C-alpha cells in the first residue's frame, strides 16, 4: 500500500450564515488553494465532497466551479461522520494507487437534513439527537454517579479552547455555573451541553508520499484507521454507558498504527454532547471506564489542551459534513507545530474520532508527523 499524507487545508469560519452548500464548498476550496502556493487544478485527480445536503452531483459541480477535471469525483454522506468517512475513502484511493492527489471538501448548513435520522422508527416521536444524548447522560449518571458539575466541565473546557480557534462558531468562555444554569432542554441535558449544527466548510488535500513534497515540508502521515458500524438505529445500543462502535474502531486503528492510547499526544474527539466526550475518553482507551469525568477535570484544571484543542464540536460548532475534516485539519496543524495558540508542545502523534447517530457508527484515524 502507498503511504498517505495530509499536506494542505482550508476552512471557512463556522457561522449561522444562510448560504448555499455549493458556495460553502467553493469558498472552502478557494481557502485551500490560497494557502497552498504550489497547487494547481491539474494536480488533483480526485475530488470528494462530504455533505448531508440533498443537492445532486455535488462532486462534479464543485470540480467544475473550481476548474478541476478529476478522474474520480463523488459525494459521501454518512451523517455526522461524513468527514472522517471521506478521509478514509481518500486514503483508500491513494493507498491502492487509484489516485495520487485527493481534494476532500466538507460542508453543511445550519439546517442540514443530516440533523435528524428519519429512518429510525424505533425512536418514535423522539427523533432529535437530544433524546438519545439525554438517555446516555442519565444512564451514565446512574452507573457512575456523574455530577452536573462534572458534565459542565466538558463544555467549559471546550468553549475555552475554542477562543483560540479563529474559525470557531463560539468565541465565548462560559463559567461552570453559567453552563449548569443554561437553558434546560431535558431533565438531563442543558443547552450548553449540546454542539450546535451550523454553516461551515473544511477542506484537506491528501497525497501519496512522492507528491507530498510538492505541497509541504511537513507532511502528516495517516498511520491507522478503524471504523465500525453496529447498526443504524439508536435502540440497538445494548449498553447506554458505552460506545461499542467507538471501542472497536479504536482498537482497530491502534492495531493498524502499532500504537496504544499512551502514544497519542493530541486528539479531536466527537463531543456532540458533553456526555459523549466523557464516554469516548474511556472507550478510546485514554482512561478507565468511569474515569472520563475525572480525566476532563484534570485537563481543565491544568489548562491542558490535549483533548479537543480547537474546542471540539461544542466550542467550534458542528457543520456536519465538515466536522471530521476540521478535526483532521486540527491534528495536522498540531503535528506540523503550526496550531498557533492552540499548540500542544512537541506533539508527534494525534487521533481523530468522528461518529454518527448515537455512536451507531464510529471512525478513528491516527496520524503521525
Amino acid at each position, binding site marked *: 500500500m502507498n503511504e498517505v499524507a495530509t499536506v494542505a487545508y482550508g476552512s471557512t469560519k463556522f457561522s449561522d450564515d444562510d448560504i448555499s452548500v455549493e458556495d460553502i464548498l467553493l469558498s472552502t476550496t478557494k481557502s485551500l488553494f490560497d494557502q497552498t502556493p504550489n497547487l494547481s487544478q491539474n494536480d488533483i485527480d480526485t475530488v470528494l465532497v462530504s455533505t448531508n445536503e440533498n443537492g445532486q452531483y455535488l462532486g462534479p459541480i464543485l470540480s467544475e466551479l473550481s476548474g478541476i477535471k478529476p478522474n474520480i469525483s463523488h459525494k459521501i454522506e454518512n451523517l455526522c461522520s461524513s468527514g472522517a468517512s471521506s478521509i478514509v475513502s481518500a486514503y483508500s484511493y491513494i493507498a491502492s494507487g487509484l489516485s495520487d492527489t485527493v481534494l476532500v471538501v466538507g460542508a453543511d448548513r445550519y439546517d442540514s437534513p443530516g440533523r435528524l435520522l428519519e*429512518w*429510525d*422508527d*424505533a*425512536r*418514535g*416521536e*423522539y*427523533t432529535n439527537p437530544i*433524546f438519545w444524548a*439525554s*438517555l446516555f*447522560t*442519565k*444512564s451514565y449518571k*446512574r452507573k457512575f454517579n456523574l455530577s452536573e458539575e462534572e458534565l459542565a466541565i466538558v463544555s467549559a473546557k471546550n468553549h475555552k479552547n475554542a477562543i483560540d480557534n479563529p474559525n470557531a462558531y463560539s468565541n465565548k468562555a462560559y463559567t461552570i455555573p453559567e453552563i449548569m444554569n443554561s437553558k434546560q*432542554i*431535558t*431533565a*438531563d*441535558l442543558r443547552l450548553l451541553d449540546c454542539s450546535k449544527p451550523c454553516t461551515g466548510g473544511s477542506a484537506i488535500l491528501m497525497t501519496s508520499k512522492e507528491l507530498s513534497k510538492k505541497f509541504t515540508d511537513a507532511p502528516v502521515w495517516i498511520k491507522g484507521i478503524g471504523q465500525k458500524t453496529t447498526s443504524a*438505529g*439508536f*435502540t*440497538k445500543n445494548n449498553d*447506554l454507558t458505552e460506545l461499542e462502535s467507538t471501542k472497536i474502531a479504536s482498537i482497530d486503528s491502534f492495531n493498524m498504527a502499532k500504537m496504544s492510547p499512551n502514544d497519542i499526544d493530541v486528539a479531536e474527539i466527537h463531543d456532540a454532547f458533553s456526555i459523549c466526550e466523557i464516554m469516548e475518553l474511556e472507550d478510546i482507551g485514554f482512561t478507565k471506564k468511569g474515569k472520563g469525568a475525572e480525566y476532563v477535570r484534570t485537563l481543565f484544571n491544568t489548562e491542558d489542551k490535549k483533548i479537543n484543542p480547537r474546542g471540539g464540536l461544542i466550542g467550534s460548532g458542528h457543520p456536519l459534513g465538515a466536522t471530521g475534516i476540521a478535526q483532521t485539519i486540527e491534528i495536522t496543524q498540531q503535528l506540523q507545530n503550526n496550531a498557533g495558540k492552540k499548540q500542544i508542545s512537541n506533539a508527534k502523534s494525534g487521533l481523530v474520532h468522528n461518529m454518527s447517530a448515537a455512536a451507531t457508527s464510529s471512525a478513528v484515524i491516527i496520524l503521525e508527523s
Partner: protein
Amino acid sequence: MNKFENELNKGNFVISKCQKCNKIVWPVNDICDNCFSNVIWVTGSKSARIIECSKQKNDWFCLVETEDQIRMLGTLKSDNEPRIEQRILLDECYFDKKPYFMFKAV
C-alpha cells in the same frame, strides 16, 4: 403508507416477523434481516419494561423493551419518576409523519 403505519393509525401495534426463521424484524421491514425471506405482520406485545428514562417538560420519555425483545422510545405519563425495569403497557399509538408510542404504568 406501509402496513405498520396504517395499523398504528387504527391504534394497532403490529410488527414484522419472518415467516421462515421467525425473527422479529425491528424497525419493521418487508424482508427479514436474518434470512431475507418475506415477513408476516403480527400483533406486537404491549407489555414492556423500562430500560432508561429522562424527562422533557411534564412527560417522561423512556427507552423501553417489549416482551418481543424490541426496543423503542415512547412517552410515559406518570407523576412519579419511573424505575428501571418497571413494567409498563403500551396504551396508545398512532402515526403522524413518525410513530408515537404512549405507555402507562401497570
